[in-house]
């Protein structure tokens, strides 16, 4: 013990930072900080426009920097806390694309002065005169854009975090803005605030689990560095062996919460329903991708040598997630809750790919996340358009006959539902194939069982989606005043990109599958 204390370094040594490699993150966080200053100093009426231009420009610049550094900046940097490797770059690129689409849907104004999805004044009591006055005065929560950028920054860091401390900081940086964004819906304020509080409380709880697990793993390995944990596992150090499994379980619980795996999914339907629809779309696509990125890195780099001890447990969670997500989505009557339970089921499908423990599993998971994310952002952008009496018509009965009133919109939504169901010629089929095939090839008996359950659960969810398509096309409208608003160019781009991506990844998945396959090697 005393030896360990005296062995601490006495001289300061500056960490080596490859600024180009972390460039995309720096661009995003700089834009977020400038966005806060815009909120402080820019005139109120200009803020929305400035924020949208600023965030979109920053995201494009970050993407360009990412592409440039992806050529020759692989490796560990910032004193070993950040690693830039193939999977990190692929997922950071996908995150930036999701962020662009998410910002586009969030910026939707429908001809008004401020973003339609966000409340004019988050601090006002719902329904109070103060809120009405803020609305009349043209207040707007354009803070949503810098908040989103902070979340994106956290996600970029999450998928490239190479030690548990960095991973935890990234987890908090990405989560805290999302809790706030969840509570900013313009309509159904109370529901939104409730969702925000639930998400925050359960999220804080899961962060504590992760932190406790990280502490145990540090106690086990003597380092929070993932590669050092990996080498500690392979050299097996006797009397501390009892710390490993609790540490693994607790860190995984923290991460499984973020992806909404059963039994840590209970926040998902509430948060997805209460959050503004564009935020829900962004959250579902980007948070899921970032959290799976962290799970992949933790499982493949840090804990792979001990996988026999916890793999079956996570496999049971995957099975449970698929079954519960699929079965409960059948009983839903609210479109956002339905999509939330479907996202739970999808988290289970993706976990099947994770547990393959093979490079093809990594590429399959990454492909699935991209396909699912594109479809999800577009789906929630469409949900935001369907209105009844000024607020979103989220009850399923209100969607009856939508296909007759708005054939194009309903057609695109039906396409996205087919993709969620995993029908051939959509991205959903290729993605499920890419995630399930490695589980059969490398997962042994447990892999086969998971895939069988996965296919059965897919059939159940397919029933849900087909019922919705039948509802839109073959049911008489209820006579309600349900109508879809005409989207502006921003939403149109987001929906179009999502739909095109769904079709292209379904018909010619080759290029993206190849790319995901080529970059699927983690730096150990």
């Amino acid at each position, binding site marked *: *013990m*005393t030896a360990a204390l005296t062995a601490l370094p006495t001289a*300061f040594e*500056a960490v080596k930072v490859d600024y180009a490699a972390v460039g995309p993150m720096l661009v995003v966080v700089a834009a977020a*900080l400038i966005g806060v*200053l815009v*909120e*402080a100093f820019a005139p109120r009426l200009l803020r929305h426009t400035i924020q949208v231009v600023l965030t979109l420009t920053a995201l494009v610049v970050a993407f360009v920097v990412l592409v440039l550094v992806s050529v020759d900046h692989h490796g560990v940097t910032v004193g070993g806390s950040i690693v830039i490797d193939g999977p990190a770059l692929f997922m950071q690129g996908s995150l930036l694309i999701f962020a662009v689409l998410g910002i586009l849907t969030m910026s939707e104004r429908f001809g008004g002065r401020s973003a339609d999805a966000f409340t004019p004044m988050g*601090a006002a009591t719902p329904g109070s005169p103060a809120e009405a006055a803020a609305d009349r005065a043209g207040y707007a929560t354009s803070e949503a854009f810098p908040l989103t950028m902070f979340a994106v920054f956290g996600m970029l860091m999450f998928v490239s975090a190479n030690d548990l401390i960095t991973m935890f900081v990234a987890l908090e940086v990405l989560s805290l803005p999302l809790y706030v964004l969840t509570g900013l819906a313009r309509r159904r304020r109370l529901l939104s605030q409730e969702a925000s509080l639930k998400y925050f409380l359960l999220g804080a709880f899961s962060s504590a689990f992760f932190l406790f697990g990280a502490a145990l793993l540090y106690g086990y390995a003597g380092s929070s560095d993932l590669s050092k944990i990996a080498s500690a596992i392979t050299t097996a150090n006797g009397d501390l062996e009892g710390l490993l499994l609790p540490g693994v379980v607790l860190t995984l619980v923290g991460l499984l919460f973020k992806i909404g795996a059963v039994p840590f999914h209970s926040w998902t339907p509430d948060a997805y329903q209460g959050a503004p629809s564009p935020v829900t779309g962004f959250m579902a696509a980007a948070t899921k991708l970032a959290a799976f990125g962290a799970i992949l890195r933790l499982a493949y780099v840090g804990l792979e040598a001990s996988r026999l001890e916890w793999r079956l447990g996570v496999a049971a969670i995957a099975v449970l997630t698929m079954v519960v997500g699929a079965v409960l989505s059948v009983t839903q009557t609210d479109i956002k809750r339905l999509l939330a339970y479907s996202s739970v089921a999808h988290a289970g499908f993706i976990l099947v790919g994770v547990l393959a423990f093979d490079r093809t599993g990594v590429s399959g998971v990454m492909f699935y996340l991209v396909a699912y994310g594109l479809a999800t952002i577009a789906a929630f952008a469409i949900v935001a358009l369907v209105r009844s009496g000024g607020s979103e018509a989220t009850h399923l009965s209100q969607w009856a006959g939508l296909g007759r009133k708005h054939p194009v919109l309903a057609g695109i939504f039906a396409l996205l539902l087919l993709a969620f169901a995993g029908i051939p010629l959509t991205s959903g089929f290729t993605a499920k194939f890419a995630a399930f095939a490695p589980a059969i090839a490398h997962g042994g008996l447990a892999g086969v069982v998971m895939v069988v359950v996965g296919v059965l659960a897919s059939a159940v969810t397919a029933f849900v989606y087909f019922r919705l398509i039948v509802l839109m096309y073959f049911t008489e409208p209820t006579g309600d005043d349900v109508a879809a608003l005409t989207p502006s160019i921003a939403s149109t781009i987001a929906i179009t990109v999502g739909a095109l991506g769904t079709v292209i990844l379904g018909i010619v998945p080759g290029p993206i599958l190849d790319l995901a396959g080529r970059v699927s090697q983690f730096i150990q």
Partner: protein
Amino acid sequence: MSNPYVPILFLLALGFVFAAGSVFTSLVVGPKRYNRAKSEPYECGIQPSPRAEGGGRVPIKYFLTAMLFIIFDIESVFLYPFAVAFDQLGLFALVEMVMFIITVFVAYAYVWKRGGLEWD
């Protein structure tokens, strides 16, 4: 004294003795002028019970002040060790510290310009 945790035990005992001793000393030598405020849980501040009418909402101003305090508290938490080891940390740490202070002041500028410092 072979166990390095023994000093911590001593510190714990010292803390306990100090706390108990302070309470005892003030009981013995302190002036005793009782009034209504003295018998309340907090001499100043908001009473947590009984529950006030309207749910006992606390004005948001207190929250903002507390948040600002935390921002600058955390800033000084990092500034102290930096200042102590400044001579051996060099230019890199100075630049990092300036970046850190800039980000803190971005938050400060936001609160200031949006009226967070006005009490009424």
